[in-house]
């Protein structure tokens, strides 16, 4: 009975939702200092290619590949962030957009390493590796009533779910701290933040690098779940797609990108007929949201209203003195 419910297709959609949530959070982190990064698709690509190449050519364990992939992406974030973050916000947006394009051009042209626009296939698959490892200990999925295939997707899904929860937990805690207050202060008024003793360049680069790290991490996971990547996966469309999770869901609280990624990943799967017009609808959503509700669907007042309702029902909700930004 359980076995029938575990449908690889549903699980795969679930995995994409989780990866998109992580990507949405990566943009949200950078935005929480008031900086818009359009390079996160590029960072995702760096994470994906780094991990894929390391695991294929040097036979490193996937986990090592993913960690290195994320770190390389973060390093690129620091390198690109330091010169641009001292300047006006629009420069960052343009430079990050251009950076994403440069990354794509490199993926396409550095054929000896990246295999050009064809992409890389045969990337070690996390689910299969988990299964292989467990089989080494004498475990068989059939013993818990699952097909191998089901087990593979289930294991990835659970792994991703745990990681996503960890990421949310991490950034929620960071938000409710000295670091989070510094981020929020910079977003609200850079000059005032600086005169309160906040090193704004440091925190902006930190937020930008954290965004790059998380995006690189999501990219590396993506590579080891699809087992195939190509430059087109990390182009402008991806950058806009990640952006829209935040624009639609909300950029002021972490639940915004989570909801945005969840809803917008699920919608085309449920409503098949619109999937062809997906990007046109995205474009319209962005224009309408900016005009009508620029902070996104989920914002602080909405959360407050919801948590009041929740408390009436007798639920105890986290009541930190920091309102989310």
């Amino acid at each position, binding site marked *: 009975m359980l076995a029938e419910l575990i449908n690889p297709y549903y699980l795969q959609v679930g995995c994409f939702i989780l990866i998109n949530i992580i990507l949405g959070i990566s943009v949200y982190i950078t935005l929480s200092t008031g900086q818009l990064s359009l390079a996160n698709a590029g960072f995702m690509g760096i994470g994906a290619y780094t991990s894929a190449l390391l695991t294929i050519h040097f036979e490193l364990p996937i986990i090592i590949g993913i960690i290195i992939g994320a770190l390389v992406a973060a390093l690129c974030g620091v390198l690109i962030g330091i010169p641009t973050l001292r300047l006006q916000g629009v420069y960052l947006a343009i430079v990050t957009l251009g950076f994403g394009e440069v990354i794509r051009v490199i993926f396409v042209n550095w054929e000896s390493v990246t295999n050009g626009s064809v992409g890389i296939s045969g990337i070690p698959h996390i689910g299969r590796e988990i299964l292989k490892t467990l089989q080494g200990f004498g475990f068989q999925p059939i013993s818990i009533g699952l097909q191998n295939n089901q087990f593979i997707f289930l294991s990835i899904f659970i792994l991703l779910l745990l990681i996503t929860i960890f990421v949310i937990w991490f950034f929620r*805690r960071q938000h409710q701290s000295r670091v989070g207050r510094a981020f929020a202060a910079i977003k609200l008024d850079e000059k005032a933040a600086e005169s309160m003793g906040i090193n704004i360049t440091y925190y902006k680069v930190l937020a930008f690098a954290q965004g790059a790290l998380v995006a690189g991490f999501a990219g590396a996971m993506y590579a080891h779940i699809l087992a195939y990547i190509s430059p087109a996966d990390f182009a402008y469309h991806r950058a806009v797609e990640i952006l829209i999770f935040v624009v639609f869901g909300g950029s002021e609280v972490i639940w915004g990108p989570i909801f945005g990624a969840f809803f917008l990943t699920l919608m085309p799967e449920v409503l098949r007929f619109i999937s062809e017009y997906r990007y046109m609808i995205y474009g319209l959503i962005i224009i309408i949201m900016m005009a009508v509700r620029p902070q996104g669907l989920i914002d602080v007042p909405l959360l407050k209203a919801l948590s009041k309702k929740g408390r009436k029902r007798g639920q105890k909700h986290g009541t930190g003195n920091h309102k989310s930004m």
Partner: protein
Amino acid sequence: MVLEITKVCKNFGGLSALTDVTFSINEGEIFGLIGPNGAGKTTMFNLITSMFTPTSGQITFKDEDITTMKSHNITEKGICRTFQNIRLFPEMSALENVMVGQHSRTRSGVLKSVFRTASQKKEEAKIKDIAEELLDFVGLSTFSDVTSENLAYGQQRRLEIARALASEPKVLLLDEPAAGMNETETSDLFDLIKKIQQKGITVLIIEHDMPLVMKLCDRIAVLNFGKKIAEGTPFEIQNHPEVIEAYLGKEEEDQYA
């Protein structure tokens, strides 16, 4: 001598906002910086806090040259300011605004914050305690949860002072703290600044409210068209012919403008 301004000039494009301004402030005093609008008073604040760098001249704080130091380092050294046009963090509560003020006196980084180590928890508790204390000090303890943009004007001014005090300054720069205040509020402000002085904090104040300045300040410097035209005790300033001509004669105009 806690703060020394030596021959400071500042040009914007071809226009000079400040020319050869020199004055120094003694520890523990309340020093007034006055002058007509556009005389360069706020520019002076911006130079002291390194929001701009002077074209020439030197600024020293406790015998240390801070002329080209970064803004946030200057706050860490012990100079903090308020703004003429109130720059609170609008969406944060009053308490949070003051908590941000303690940034340079606290240390917890990302990992300590996320894993909430014992030292981080202690620090957070301390930050909160100090912030509540300071809100109480400026008379805003009942508003600690109110979003700062929802506070009344006079309250916002006092909150800004509390936020600046949270950085534990040796020198506090106040940019027109009485602007827009009524008489009772101004008199409360007078008491507050005196209380700040009693804490051992040196105060440098820009203010247009002459009765307040004369009552409050130990010494005063007067700027006009970017030049210092007088310096001395309130009594000396009030009787200084050039000041009367440049500034006090204009006072009525200013007040009813």
